[in-house]
């Protein structure tokens, strides 16, 4: 993982000191809330329903044991003993006092962490594939480029007061696990005709009130040109993005209103006009320096199969199931990536207690090359675990209540915090998510249904990414009563699509039974068990699914 040098260190320390000064001025009344707001937001501090919330950056979702333990300590000392991992691979603390924020930032800086640009109208924390460096289908590890983008975008003076927030994601896998097509800019690493690795540049995707799948603006840009090309995009957006209406200020609206061709032409003209002194020419030695931090760990040479693991799998049904659903194929023979599902009844999806964080930290240190990832499914991942160690890892996870075995299935619901925590929300998300999870409480049924992404948002801001759930659930407020609209057909992967709202909203208590009917309809309609929900939906269309959804009324 990337380690700070003296420059990175001094900047994070300076930032913590700067923010301490801003908080101090605010608490003394020298700074009005109106003027403080953009400042605190650029440092991840939101004013939520009950308290201030701090969003801590986890660049491209990578943690190690010492970072995770520090997050656990922060949760214990300044919060209520837990943290919330988010769809953008960050972690949020919901109960930190404003006066304590500067101390928390110092604690973060002690482990090379920060909350810089996790909010506000700036370039946000860059996200990536949680299996980067571990999976079998990427052409190259995307993390060095994520780190390069992190540094370039940090305190970028020209792009610190954009029309709206700006999210960049990078993936290098044939399978897109970073949802790059629904980001302001998505970068998909690929080879050009000459075999050189560069980036497909996808612009103008996004969810929120007006969801769009991004458009490919450049089929391939070289590594050498990447930052300069990003600057050209950012400048066009900063100059011409709408500022008259915050709901029309994202780059997706600019791209849509101009049309992709005109947007592309403006970017290409801006890019072509850059003088050589304006180009960002990273020395190869600097790229190599950063890439070296992401060199593969020292994997042992192992056979593909592990007798220890085989015995574990055949020993008990629940172990076999966990192994089938929660392990991911690894590039190194004899290893796997372990998916730890943070979806517990009664808690917000993505919540982990300080105790759970410490256990995962211990496991990473002992069995996982000190590497932990946050997945955008609001789960944690140990990317590199020896198959021989899987039984020990499973036992520890089980003791911590972290052995839920439905990764990527119906119970692995993505949801926003909803009305319980958020002052934007119209409806509860957590309780609906919990009830929908209960539909899949029988493991045999959940396995029978197979891969299924369900996403719940408590309002149209779409923090639960309901537009890209195979089944999306959106909370709306109708005259003070919570209703839930259901969408079908969304997906966030390389075949990204926006789901379609099926019709009138359902009452809270109607949602789970309706989802049950839809799933039953799918099971009856599919060709065979290899046809997933989303594939069956794509083949058949919404008719029978919609009918099942409303069959009770």
């Amino acid at each position: 993982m990337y380690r700070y040098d003296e420059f990175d260190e001094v900047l994070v320390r300076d930032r913590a000191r700067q923010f301490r000064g801003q908080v101090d001025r605010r608490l003394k009344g020298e700074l009005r809330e109106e003027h403080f707001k953009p400042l605190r937001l650029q440092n991840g501090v939101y004013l939520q329903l009950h308290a201030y919330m701090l969003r801590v950056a986890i660049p491209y979702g990578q943690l190690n044991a010492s970072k995770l333990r520090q997050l656990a300590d922060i949760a214990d000392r300044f919060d209520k003993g837990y943290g919330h991992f988010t769809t953008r691979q960050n972690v949020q603390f919901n109960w930190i006092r404003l006066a304590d924020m500067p101390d928390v930032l110092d604690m973060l800086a002690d482990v090379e962490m920060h909350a810089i640009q996790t909010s506000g109208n700036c370039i946000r924390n860059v996200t990536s594939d949680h299996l980067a460096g571990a999976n079998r289908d990427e052409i190259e590890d995307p993390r060095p480029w994520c780190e390069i983008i992190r540094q370039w975008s940090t305190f970028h003076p020209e792009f610190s007061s954009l029309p709206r927030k700006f999210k960049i994601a990078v993936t290098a896998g044939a399978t897109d696990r970073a949802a790059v097509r629904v980001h302001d800019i998505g970068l998909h690493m690929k080879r050009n005709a000459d075999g050189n690795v560069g980036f497909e540049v996808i612009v103008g995707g996004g969810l929120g009130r007006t969801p769009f799948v991004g458009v490919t603006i450049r089929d391939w840009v070289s590594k050498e040109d990447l930052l300069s090309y990003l600057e050209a995009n950012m400048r066009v957006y900063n100059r011409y993005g709408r500022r008259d209406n915050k709901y029309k200020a994202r780059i997706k609206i600019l791209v849509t209103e101009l049309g992709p061709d005109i947007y592309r032409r403006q970017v290409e003209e801006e890019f072509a006009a850059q003088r050589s002194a304006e180009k960002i020419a990273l020395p190869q030695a600097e790229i190599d320096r950063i890439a070296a931090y992401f060199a593969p760990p020292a994997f042992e040479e192992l056979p593909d199969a592990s007798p220890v693991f085989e015995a574990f799998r055949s020993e008990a049904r629940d172990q076999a199931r966990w192994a089938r659903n929660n392990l991911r194929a690894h590039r190194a023979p004899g290893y796997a990536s372990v998916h730890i599902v943070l979806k517990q009844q009664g808690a917000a999806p993505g919540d982990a207690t300080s105790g759970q964080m410490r256990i995962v930290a211990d496991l990473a240190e002992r069995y996982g090359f000190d590497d932990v990832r946050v997945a955008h499914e609001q789960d944690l991942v140990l990317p590199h675990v020896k198959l021989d160690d899987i039984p020990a890892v499973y036992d520890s996870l089980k003791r911590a209540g972290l052995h839920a075995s439905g990764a990527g299935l119906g119970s692995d619901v993505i949801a926003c915090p909803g009305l319980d925590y958020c002052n934007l929300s119209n409806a509860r998300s957590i309780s609906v998510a919990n009830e929908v999870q209960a539909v899949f409480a029988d493991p045999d049924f959940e396995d029978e249904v197979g891969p299924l992404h369900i996403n719940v948002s408590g309002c149209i801001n779409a923090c639960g990414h309901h537009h890209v759930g195979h089944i999306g659930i959106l909370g709306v407020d109708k005259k003070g009563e919570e209703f839930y609209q259901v969408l079908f057909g969304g997906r966030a992967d390389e075949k990204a699509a926006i789901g379609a709202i099926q019709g009138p909203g359902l009452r809270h208590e109607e949602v789970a039974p309706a989802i049950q009917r839809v799933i039953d309809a799918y099971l009856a309609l599919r060709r065979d068990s290899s046809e997933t929900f989303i594939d069956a939906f794509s083949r058949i269309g919404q008719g029978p699914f919609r009918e099942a959804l409303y069959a009770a009324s």
Partner: protein
Amino acid sequence: MPLLRLGRIEDDVWTPVGEAQELPERGAILVSLSRFTADHERLLAGNCALGVSLANTDNPADILPWISRISLIVLEFPKYTDGRAFSQAQLLRRRYGYAGEIRATGQVLRDQLRLMIRTGFDAMLIDEADAEAVYQLSAAELSEAYQAASDSSEAVFIKRQRAREVSADQ
């Protein structure tokens, strides 16, 4: 409102001249882009030092042919969260090589000063009691910069490269 130039409070010697207003004989005059566009031959032929105010929707390229004869460009922050003038300033300095004064007006708050300095502003009208001290503090708040901009800060990646070259020489 105090005018800060290069971190010092200075008198403002520039006289704004309206769209239809008669031009003074000498002095330093500040006109809008539309007045400049309509009248630039007379303006440039006169004895006055010339400044141009741009709205943040104006294109700095519109004054490019005359840029070396303009001594002041005023850019506007209608709200301090509106960062369009940062791009204008960067274009003026880095692309068009403009070397005169770039001045910020509008809602200029101390927490933007560093961003302004980095994007090429050397002057600002700022409503602060102790403007010079606030400027010094803001300018020094962050000791490094990851990216090159219009100021003299050297990007961290360049510093790292130099350190590598130095250590390779030794």
